[in-house]
């Protein structure tokens, strides 16, 4: 059908061949090129503006910006108030380590779990699932990928958080940390679980594309040598698809770092540093990563030092996203030598 449409179009073109083209190629290329350059310029402007606006915060704190020290929420409050009070000297002092640590923990946890699950699921979808199962799983993955983050957040707040609060936190553990933080179910574990469900579909779809692109003859060679299907697929297809695995992980990690709304809803509204040595309590301790901190303090845009702090957070997010894609690119370059071009 598409071919037919094309040939009809071609006839029409032939009939009107004498018409002078309204658009010369040169003009078209320049017009399109201008839009393309505009988009590149927009990205550059974004990077520059976000960094410039965030610079005062980095400048006043130096490297101690990244260290621990005091309550981050109190510092943010002081910064905000100093900009609101007329005549007051702006305060920039901030030690953002709790937020950075929390971003590490939540993103790292979710990406680690999601990577394992996604790898198995995509191997299953591409190779081992029976036809009917594949026909169910593919739409399921697409569906999970398209559920808006605020819906995930809502389900987290109204279902998972009460469940954790009522069933997984014992009264004694609640009492043991009562003087520092209150354990209410909003916290690390809940956030990691929901984030995993959110980013796994992204990984699965990219992993599946990579695994599907592996040459069948390579697999057949291994099968002919008597290696069973399971081993063959893991040793040959998964290894060959490594660049796709890296690409998928990078995209999913970028999404996880930037996820703001869902985490603002379920991660607990405190800039707290969860300590892995706390034992089981660790998983229910509240902690708020960088992106949700921006959302939670968005009213701070009205106050100059607070605004600069928010842009500093944003530039840290931008920087991590850029570094991630760069690291992914390096990893894929070094793999190219040993794997098929996928």
């Amino acid at each position: 059908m598409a071919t037919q449409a094309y040939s009809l179009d071609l006839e029409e073109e032939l009939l009107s061949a004498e018409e002078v083209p309204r658009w010369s190629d040169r003009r078209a290329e320049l017009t399109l090129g201008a839009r393309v350059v505009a988009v590149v310029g927009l990205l550059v402007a974004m990077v520059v503006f976000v960094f410039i606006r965030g610079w005062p915060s980095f400048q006043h704190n130096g490297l101690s910006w990244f260290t621990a020290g005091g309550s981050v929420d109190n510092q943010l409050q002081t910064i905000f108030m100093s900009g609101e009070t007329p005549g007051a000297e702006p305060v920039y002092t901030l030690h953002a380590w709790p937020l950075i640590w929390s971003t590490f923990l939540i993103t790292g946890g979710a990406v680690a779990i999601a990577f394992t699950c996604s790898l198995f699921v995509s191997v299953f979808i591409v190779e081992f699932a029976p036809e009917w199962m594949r026909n169910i799983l593919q739409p399921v993955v697409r569906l999970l990928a398209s559920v808006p983050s605020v819906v995930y957040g809502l389900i987290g707040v109204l279902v998972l958080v009460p469940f954790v609060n009522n069933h997984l936190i014992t009264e004694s553990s609640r009492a043991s940390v009562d003087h520092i933080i209150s354990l209410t179910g909003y916290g690390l574990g809940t956030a990691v679980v929901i984030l995993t469900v959110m980013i796994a579909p992204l990984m699965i779809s990219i992993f599946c594309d990579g695994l599907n692109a592996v040459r069948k003859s390579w697999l057949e060679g291994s099968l002919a040598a008597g290696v069973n299907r399971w081993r063959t697929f893991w040793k040959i297809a998964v290894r060959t698809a490594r660049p796709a695995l890296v690409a998928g992980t990078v995209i999913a990690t970028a999404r996880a770092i930037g996820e703001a709304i869902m985490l603002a809803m379920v991660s607990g509204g405190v800039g707290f540093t969860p300590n892995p040595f706390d034992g089981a309590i660790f998983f229910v301790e509240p902690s708020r990563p960088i992106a949700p901190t921006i959302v939670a303090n968005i009213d701070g845009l009205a106050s100059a030092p607070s605004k600069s702090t928010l842009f500093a957070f944003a530039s840290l997010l931008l920087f991590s996203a850029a570094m991630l894609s760069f690291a992914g690119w390096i990893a894929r370059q070094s793999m190219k030598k040993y794997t098929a071009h996928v």
Partner: protein
Amino acid sequence: MSTPVKYDAVESSAAWRFSDRIGLAFCWFLGLLFCAIAAAIVIYMLVKGIQYVRPELLTTSPTTGFTQAKTGGFLDPLIGTFIVAAIGIAIALPLGIAIAVWLSEFGRPFALARVVESTVEMIAGTPSIVLALFGTVIFSSTALAFLSRESGGVVFGRSFFAAGAMLSLVALPLVVSATREGLQAIPAHVREASYAVGKTKIATTRRILLPAARPSVATGAMLGLGRIIGDTAIIVVLLGALQNFEPTGSVFPFDYLQGAGSTLTNYVYSNAPTGELNNPQKAYAAAFVLLVLVLFLNAAVDVVHRRSRKAGSWNS
């Protein structure tokens, strides 16, 4: 996805080593788990939706009230969602197609093409909260005061224009990659045939390549729409955390576009127990409507895919 290898006789896993069989069992477990999670989300939202969605919710505006029965419906956020979706896709679609055509058909100089590729990749990887903050920088500038409200020299910077424009950047990478894929799937001989009858490159693109790539463009547009509808961070920052429309100015359609407002995502966010309003029933109802919209878009993508596959690819 291409069709998997077809084995005439599928090897039985009974002969495998124990560890391999455990692995396969783990695959089944995870596959079923994902199905269960998706089913749980859909069924749970469906139950809550049937419980709380009333037709009058869709036709009344939100009001402030102390009980959940008195806070009105979500007509304004629903219309707001459609407005930002329209603005966002109206910017993202032409721009995305232009970038994809340039990348796939022109792409000179080579260095610029690589830069553009990484730019699109970077935009896709930029968190939407960062885009939102950048939006406040752009739209608070006095040069763009006409796109939002201005009082006493201070530009408010929050309007449907601002939110829609930044949301278009969320949809842009999806439109670009889908369109580009569609264009690259067209074999070179089609282009050559068109050049051979004396058509220019741009005429070929407009009359032959883009019509042929229409299913891909439509897929990209709908995926982009889904992302726009589901985005909350940009709405919260650039549309103001309001519930109702707050028109600015006097010319009819523009006063709404220039003013602040809300969308369904914003409404769900502020009505969740963690938000400022805390009306969980309304949040459930709005989230249900939002989910229905997104699933509808998903189904539309599937239909387009199936149709284009039925129509046959260039190689068959």
